[in-house]
């Protein structure tokens, strides 16, 4: 029987809608009667809004890094530009919020285009370092030129944040708190941007991006203008980050130079690699993971009885989870998802039911993997701490185990790992 190909756009959109609905449903559980455990505090709504905002950035960064192969460690700068543009226009000029979000995206996109021009000359780690410089310089610039940016005190947008419109109550008969309304808003933007991203990467432009990533010379030979598409990728990606910045302003209600440190930029890159490069689904999963895992891990670890130090060490466990994800899921959470869908649907009869089962299993795998990895990191470290005599045996069987797991990924020789091979998919590395 023929194996099913990986899920198509329509299926991914279905999945995205499902996932969004699940996330959406939780904050709106206030319509449930009192005492139902799903009624969650406003903090969860805030978290869900942050996830939606991170999804927007990750979608854009994935277009640049995942599809076009240019590493950016400076996307925090574009988010900052978008956020500050939106905040200044709202507070100092009184523009309506939705115009400021678009304006933030456009200004950041223009900046991205300008950054993309010098980036044409740089590849791999050199480009990564140059963009990291952008992320490092941003807070300093925001503090220094305080005539426009209000300096270190930041801008409080809270009074200008859009109030819950009347029509929601009229149409749906539910009254939303303001943060729930903002959440809906950001979610809607994220959804639009996801559809836009899916369309971009499957269009002529997206194919040009991928062709350039896989081999610039071959792409050029096919008549693709490499400079045009590379700067375009930068501009689109920065536009996404700018829109996310505008969304950030609505969610947090406040911007300051400290909001956009360079660690944020590094976290964005982590998001798309952990989620899965060149995958829209990966951007969504990665954003959820990167927002939830660091903030939930201390609490989860605290539940483990008799291991009090674990809470202080939660960041180390997070690091361990990152490493284990990269070892066991080299194509990220999306890769894990696709693989499990394929596994299940190859057993099941080829039917809609089979695909559905595959999707459900995939969702379950992707959702459980973060927790499982944290737990695995915990178990491995405790085993190694508490049972030193086992380490020798454990290490040996561990490396054999890893070797067995990695073997389908191709030969382990390092010759393939050239300095400019930033994309995850197994494309030939033409530059040596």
């Amino acid at each position: 029987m023929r194996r099913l190909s990986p899920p198509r756009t329509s299926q991914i959109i279905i999945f995205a809608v499902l996932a969004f609905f699940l996330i959406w449903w939780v904050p709106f559980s206030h319509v449930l009667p009192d005492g139902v455990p799903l009624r969650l505090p406003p903090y969860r709504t805030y978290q869900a809004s942050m996830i939606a905002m991170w999804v927007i950035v990750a979608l854009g960064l994935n277009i640049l890094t995942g599809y076009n192969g240019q590493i950016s460690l400076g996307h925090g700068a574009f988010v900052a530009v978008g956020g500050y543009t939106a905040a200044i226009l709202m507070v100092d000029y009184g523009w309506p919020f939705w115009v400021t979000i678009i304006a933030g995206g456009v200004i950041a996109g223009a900046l991205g285009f300008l950054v993309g021009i010098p980036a044409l000359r740089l590849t791999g780690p050199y480009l990564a370092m140059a963009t990291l410089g952008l992320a490092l310089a941003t807070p300093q610039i925001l503090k220094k030129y305080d005539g426009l940016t209000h300096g270190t005190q930041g801008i409080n947008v809270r009074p200008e944040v859009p109030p819950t419109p009347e029509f929601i109550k009229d149409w749906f008969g539910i009254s939303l708190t303001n943060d729930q309304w903002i959440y809906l808003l950001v979610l809607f933007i994220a959804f639009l941007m996801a559809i836009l991203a899916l369309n971009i990467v499957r269009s002529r432009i997206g194919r040009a991006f991928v062709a350039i990533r896989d081999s610039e010379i071959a792409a050029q030979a096919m008549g693709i203008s490499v400079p045009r598409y590379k700067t375009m990728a930068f501009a689109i990606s920065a536009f996404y980050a700018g829109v996310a910045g505008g969304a950030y302003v609505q969610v947090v209600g406040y911007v300051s130079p400290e909001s956009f440190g360079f660690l944020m930029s590094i976290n964005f890159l982590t998001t798309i690699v952990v989620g899965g490069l060149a995958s829209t689904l990966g951007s969504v999963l990665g954003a959820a993971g990167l927002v939830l895992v660091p903030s939930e891990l201390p609490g989860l670890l605290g539940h483990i009885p008799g291991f009090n130090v674990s809470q202080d060490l939660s960041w180390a466990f997070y690091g361990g989870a990152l490493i284990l994800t990269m070892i066991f899921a080299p194509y990220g959470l999306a890769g894990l998802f696709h693989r499990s869908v394929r596994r299940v649907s190859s057993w099941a009869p080829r039917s809609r039911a089979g695909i559905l089962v595959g999707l459900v299993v995939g969702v379950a795998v992707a959702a459980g993997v973060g927790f499982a990895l944290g737990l695995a990191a915990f178990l491995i470290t405790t085993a190694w701490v508490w049972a030193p005599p086992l380490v020798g045996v454990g290490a040996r069987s561990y490396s054999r185990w890893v070797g067995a797991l990695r073997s389908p990924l191709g030969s382990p020789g390092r010759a393939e790992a050239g300095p400019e091979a930033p994309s995850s998919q197994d494309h030939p590395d033409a530059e040596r």
Partner: protein
Amino acid sequence: MAEFWQQVVGGLATGSVYGLLALALVLIYRSTSVLNFAQGEMAMFTTFIAWSILQWGEYWIMFPLVLVIAAGIGALVERVVIRPVEGAPVLNIIIVTLGLFAIFNNLASWRWGGIPKGFPTPPEIHVTGIKFFGGGALDVGPTAVSYHDLTIMIFAVGIMIALYLFFQYTPLGLAMRATAQNPVASRLMGIRVGRMLTVGWALSAVVGAVAGLLIAPLVLLQPPMMMGVLLYAMAAAVVGGLDSPVGAVVGGLIIGVSEALVGTYTPKDLLGPDMKLTVTLVIILVVLLVRPTGIFGRRTLRRV
């Protein structure tokens, strides 16, 4: 003019530390083609170990001990976490080093706490009547150079010479250079490529540890102390060219000096000390635009 030379010498000293850490980055980059984001945190961790040893031991007993421990940590990291992702895409390995960053940082603040600790400069030694290391300052022409700055520069130069001799004149160094250049051919020639990588990580951890020991007296010993240094070191490695050890040190010196001068000599209201990082980064960008693979970096040849 005295102030100018003062700034230059101070810049050269901090630049030497950047250069050392950049050297550590380059040692790993040459063999693995990965920027090790955990390099600074590994150095911070070994410096904390050094501080613990100093609670009961002499400085010059601690020094070799810490280098051995650092080598052990570097080798262990390569074996346990880098080996399993050896053939993976570069970005994946970068994420692994970010995970290591979190682990070392968290372990250090868990074990030693976040309160900054003082760290001693190397105690003075008299060799044939000339004073080495220790405190105080030495008058050189129009300016005074602190002994610790001199110590840093002596160590930087010493390590460079030692590494040069190691790579040029020892069989192990030759094998490591061969591995960096062509792993497949090296394996066919009977070089144990995996072992060379482990040695490379150990060596790089040792160089990083020295950088940590030298910078700790200036910035106080605390978990985030190497973060800024690492960023400057990365910039230094990139400016010099990521596959060039000489470039790393030269890049470090360029960045150290330009950082010091920008902080002093640019107009305060427009740029000034607050913006020295930004201006330094602009300088780096300009250098990269002229030479996209750094000053000493090899240009990558493209073969279709």
